[in-house]
């Protein structure tokens, strides 16, 4: 089995680094090849990293509440840059405040994210989803 490549990072002006460091560790342990852009990543940076590495998925974290503003247009930008159909996840505390997760999920799916995860999602959940979506056998 060849190693799947995923690009991770925290979008926008967001500096929450702890979860990112832990996700890097967990994804690597789980057998993925991880390109970690760290915090404060712009849409453009994710996209060029994904192109450069020929990545299978982009995993966007947003913790600080501006996720909704920061993630707009990301799918379109992927499409324009030749990353049509690339797997796009978003997770963390992606909106401002405590909101019903169903509404939030709907809004981010409408923006073109394949999967949307709520606050405190454990790494195992993300890993299972990635394996499923990328067809990695257990």
């Amino acid at each position, binding site marked *: 089995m060849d190693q799947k490549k995923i690009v991770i990072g925290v979008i926008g002006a967001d500096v929450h680094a702890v979860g990112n460091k832990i996700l890097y560790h967990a994804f690597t342990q789980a057998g993925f090849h991880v390109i970690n852009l760290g915090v404060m990543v712009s849409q453009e940076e994710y996209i060029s990293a994904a192109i450069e590495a020929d990545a299978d998925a982009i995993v966007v974290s947003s913790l600080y509440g501006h996720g909704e*503003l920061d993630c707009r247009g990301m799918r379109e930008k992927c499409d324009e840059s030749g990353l049509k159909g690339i797997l796009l996840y978003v997770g963390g505390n992606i909106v*401002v*405040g405590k909101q019903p997760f169903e509404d939030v999920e709907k809004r981010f799916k409408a923006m073109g994210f394949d999967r949307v995860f709520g606050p405190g999602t454990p790494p195992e959940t993300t890993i299972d989803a990635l394996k499923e979506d990328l067809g990695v056998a257990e």
Partner: protein
Amino acid sequence: MDLRNKKIDEGVFMASRGEVLAQWPTGSRVDLQEAVDFHKSLPESKIFSRKLADAKKHRKTLIQPRAGVALLQDHIKLLTFLQDHGEADLLPTTIDSYTRQNRYKEAENGIEESVRQSKSMLNGFPAVNHGVDGCRSIIQSLDVPVQVRHGTPDARLLTEITYAGGYTSYEGGGISYNIPYAKSVSLESTIRDWQYVDRLTGLYEEMGISINREPFGPLTGTLVPPSISHAVAIIESLLAAEQGVRNITVGYGQCGNLIQDVAAIRSLEEMTEEYLKVYGYDDVVVTTVLHQWMGGFPQDEAKAFGVISWGSVVGALAGATKIIVKTPHEAMGVPTMEANAQGLRCTKQVISMLADQPLNNAQVTAEKEIIKAETKCILDKCFELGEGDIAVGAVAAFQTGVLDIPFAPSRFNAGKLLPARDNDGAIRILTPGAVPFSKELLDFNAAKIEERAKSEKRAASFQMVIDDVYAIGKGRLVGRP
């Protein structure tokens, strides 16, 4: 220009001031003398430094929330609610993350989006965009002192506007608002920019307006050993005092072990006073702030109340001058005003019940000695690296990993040091990196971690650190396997 811990020359300051005020249109409204007059018109009850000094004198512990939303009227409504229904002694204005990155255009978008969607699309109050008069209407609407709280590496314009706007306290510092809050901003530049902030504070002070300054104690909020945050707080206090700041609140983020936390608050106050005196700043009023647990929170609100209360207990037993309060929504998102007021009332109940019960014991005394010795090792080395100049020394200390903050996003932070809890839940050092502890102290830390490893029947490793990061969120202090 050379970085030095020296009061900024007036000519130099005034020259850069012009540039700063030109960064965004609202800057042109700032007029120092007019601002001082506005401050002089404020009643005592709205002045942060007064209320803190008074609390210190009477050994009272005050409470303060975090709060900020995009729109002015909503922000006033929010703070009024926290004052009236949260029994807050002190109020904040938490600034949004775009403003913190000087992205005033994006903040403007956020304001417009918020108007359109009739809900705050920003995670704080964009004070620069709202300008001096916006700020003044906040100060005028409330009965208690208000502080600016943020996380801005270059906060010069924000300071100018909010000081002119009547804020009487200001959080942040050249290290504490860089390393945990930025990725690639150099320390030289943030220390310099914060010397500007402190010099401006000094100017107000010289004109009779004592504005309180508060280095951000908790740093990344994630398993930071007290000696590291103490070293940063003391360095920033020295830097601020040199620029003329005379009212300083040093802070510390609760670690979760009672003895270590009480010892930390007490030693922080004592050491800061000592260092300021030794370096010739005799007339600085030093107070303390305990931040309730700053790491990951449990999602369940009932459990969050437990964490909030435990922080309140520690703040009260340690005799902190104020406590920064979390809310039952912490793990989920920016709290509603109701949830925010709940966190405050819970805290108020606990600290009132504990008001007359200071904790003193041999364990606290012993732990204080450890913290002081560790802090001194770090500071001695910083001074040595700076050849006596602590601004220079601080930069060098980060370069060499002498100062190394766990989990920091900044690329100017070594990231070699790893903390972990010991068997009692106190935060110790697992992998020391380049931290300049004496052999004795290194051995002490190693032994403490080893004791835990033994009791958990596993070797100490990064997995232990990860387990500790998740522990409180999962309802424990120590991340046992």
